[in-house]
């Protein structure tokens, strides 16, 4: 079980892509079971580490640690996305899906859009 991985499609829009190699679309793989403290440095192997199924809160940390190229403060704040960033799970507002607690499934498409750039 813990060796399973999830394949996800990640999209950035509204200027957020500038923080991620100026690339809007990314295909990534993350572990299905992750550390409960959202640390992305190592897979949970030891027995005494608390784990959880991968959720969006973990994904945000994973993206910061492995995909983001600059200015993390424009993406993450207080263990969630910075206010003003919209998140969609398979085209649905994450506010309807439990926000950070949404448990990711293989093949999910997660979109992050900044609303903060000029009109």
């Amino acid at each position: 079980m813990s060796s399973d991985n999830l394949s996800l499609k990640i999209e950035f829009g509204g200027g957020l892509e500038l923080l991620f190699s100026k690339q809007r679309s990314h295909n990534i793989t993350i572990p299905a079971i992750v550390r409960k403290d959202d640390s992305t440095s190592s897979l949970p192997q030891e027995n005494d580490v608390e784990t959880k199924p991968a959720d969006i809160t973990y994904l945000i940390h994973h993206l910061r640690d492995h995909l983001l190229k600059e200015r993390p403060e424009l993406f993450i704040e207080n263990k969630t996305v910075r206010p003003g960033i919209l998140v969609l799970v398979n085209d649905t507002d994450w506010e309807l899906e439990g926000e950070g607690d949404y448990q990711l499934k293989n093949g999910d498409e997660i979109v992050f859009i900044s609303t903060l750039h000029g009109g």
Partner: protein
Amino acid sequence: MAPKLCVLCETAKAMLRRPKTGQQICRDCFFYVFETEVHNTIVEAKLFKSGDSVAIGASGGKDSTVLAYVMKTLNERYKYGLELFLLSIDEGITGYRDDSLETVKRNQQQYDMPLKILSYDELYGWTMDAIVAQVGRKNNCTFCGVFRRQALDRGAAMLGVDHIVTGHNADDIAETILMNIMRGDIARLGRCTAICTQGEDTIKRSKPFKYAYEKEIVMYAYFKKLDYFSTECIYSPDAYRGHARAFLKDLEAARPSAIIDIIHSGEAFEVKEEVKATQHVQQTCQRCGYMSSNPLCKACTLLEGLERGSAESGLTERARKKLEAEGPTPENIRTIPFFNKTPSGNPGLSIAVEIPA
């Protein structure tokens, strides 16, 4: 978890939560309520009458792109009878405005609307790149803001339109209210919530998205797959607005109705007559004919400073006095073409033939 159903149609899967109401609604109901609310805003404020020519201030960004799309949709659906134009201002910022103008040019094709682009270079003889090279990155936003406002009016006059609509949304207005409170700018606080403003001789200006949340505008653009440009201005930081914005976004995260609540508070302020009395009376700029609260309008003051190599003189009293001490305005200085909007509704732009002292 079973998908939640839309609270409006009760058949389709809910796709978003409306920040204003907390309602969970589906994509089609969202399009309908978003467009209908803008329509209601327009009708209740009596913004237009049939036959009006209206320029949409288009930057290529999300707000103006959605505005152009929605204006076109509503004009057709409700038979407003408007003639719509796109009006873009090219500030002359390499790597920013040149790219966003490409988006506007695509919008012109997609929405089938005539497009007019007016550049700072054409109107003032200065691009923002050149201005920043002279003034640095401290007060450049002041120049850009003053120049853009006048350029939009002049572009509208060139198009011969009656009205300019801009994409200012509820978040922008709430931000401005907060800024005016924090700066103690009571005159602007009184004006900034108005949906429609009109100077003595200028073209009407209004904000059909006054009550539209930024979140919904972005969602609308996303679901409709609208083509918009989103890069921060390279000379950006209007630091003060940035703080107001971050603060507002934090408030919204805690309580989504905060934005509309702030607008409501702003609308409820009444500016005392004594305060109003101290405000300058509107007059016409002696040099360029544009509306002004001083003998010389702000754009002419700033331009003279640039031309005389003393950009600060348009900004601080001290620098202005220093420049005045150097002598009168040179005869051959570059000026803005004379603004001549005739009351007959046949506005035009003519060239200044003489410069009053």
